[in-house]
């Protein structure tokens, strides 16, 4: 498989992924519509009858919104979940060397120079993320900088540039974002079902809501979390999620 076939394959996979994601949501909604339809079949004249599949349409629209949101902010979320911080200019000798090596390999691969991030971790590791091949983000651990010499670092960075060029990066960021979104929604629904009885019933709503707030312990707001941060303290908070979210090793 040459580079162009590889790119085409990854573009195809990205499209399929988005399509299946949308269909999955529409399918969920249509299931609800089907139940409501059955339920209101025998409704007397003048009463509400569920004919138009509103739930399916609404869920498909929500899914479209999620995809658009992940395309826009997916890279930021992945970076945030790994605790990466942007590399500032004029750092240590090792950081300077990293900048140089990245620039060299970007020239060699003919891809735009990625923006750089550092993760404070003694394990050597690196990954790229981003949904736009023209705006890659590259994160490396501090361990990688201290353990590798210049040539070894060049090899690792060249490998990551390959991910940018093959469009692996785009696909894997979408996977991480969409899978994360589903996990968040499952988590949120689970909470609703668990605490559901307390949410219904006269006058209990407010109380139940307050109790839940105490029980949930809202995570500190982080601008990068965006939608995910607003929904619930989800899997992004769990330490093991960082490995799951790493698109490339």
């Amino acid at each position: 498989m040459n580079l162009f076939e590889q790119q085409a394959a990854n573009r195809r996979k990205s499209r399929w992924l988005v399509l299946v994601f949308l269909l999955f949501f529409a399918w969920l909604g249509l299931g609800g519509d089907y139940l409501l339809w059955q339920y209101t079949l025998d409704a007397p004249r003048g009463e509400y009858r569920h004919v138009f599949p509103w739930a399916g349409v609404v869920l498909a629209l929500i899914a479209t919104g999620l995809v658009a949101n992940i395309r826009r902010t997916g890279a930021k979320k992945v970076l945030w979940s790994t605790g990466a911080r942007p590399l500032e200019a004029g750092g240590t000798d090792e950081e300077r060397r990293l900048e140089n090596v990245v620039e060299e390999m970007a020239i060699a691969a003919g891809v735009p120079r990625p923006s750089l991030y550092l993760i404070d971790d003694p394990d050597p590791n690196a990954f790229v993320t981003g949904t736009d091949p023209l705006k890659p983000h590259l994160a490396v651990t501090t361990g990688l900088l201290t353990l590798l010499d210049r040539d070894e670092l060049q090899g690792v960075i060249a490998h990551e540039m390959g991910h940018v060029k093959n469009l692996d990066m785009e696909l894997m960021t979408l996977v991480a974002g969409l899978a994360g979104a589903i996990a968040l929604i499952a988590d949120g629904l689970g909470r609703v079902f668990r605490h559901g009885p307390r949410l219904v019933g006269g006058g209990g709503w407010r109380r139940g809501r307050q109790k839940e707030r105490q029980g949930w312990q809202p995570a500190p707001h982080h601008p990068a979390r965006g939608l995910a941060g607003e929904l619930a303290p989800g899997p992004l908070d769990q330490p093991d999620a960082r490995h799951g979210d790493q698109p490339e090793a």
Partner: protein
Amino acid sequence: MFYLILIALVVVGGWFIMAYNGLIALKNQTANALKQIDVQLKRRHDLIPNLMQAVQGAMDFEKDTLAAVVQARNTAVVAAAGLTPQHVAASAQAEAQLSGALGKLMAVVEAYPDLKATGNVKQFQEELASTENKVSFARQLYNDTATEYNTRQQQFPTNLAAGMANASPAELWEIEDSAERAVPKVEFRRN
């Protein structure tokens, strides 16, 4: 019959537009690839005066080595000013000379552990190594693009559109440092 001629004209015209535009695109890509080298060359030329300042105090007695670098740099700066896809050889040669002179300087610096240990010199070594790499990667890109451009304008039938598109063969960036190419002379003598 009239329609046949019309169709033939449209086909030939369409082909010509595509061939012409393809050549123009490659011409601009070649110029762009050369510009990438130029950017890195400029960076390298700018680094050298600072490097000189960092080392000359400690290396007063290595005047020849320092002078060779300064001279090679000046030649390279002049050559870079006239750099176009049709005139690459002069710059390529001057840069190769400069690489050689810098290499010698760095070899001499190795002999001065105190000098080598100072922050400035270490940083310059890193920057110079990086710039050399960037030049060589940019050169790969340029040579690939220029080769494609040259091939396209020589191939039939695109060569028919080459004159109209003002296409002329681009020079490849070759390494022409006599020192780098020379085979070391080994003499066996019997006394």
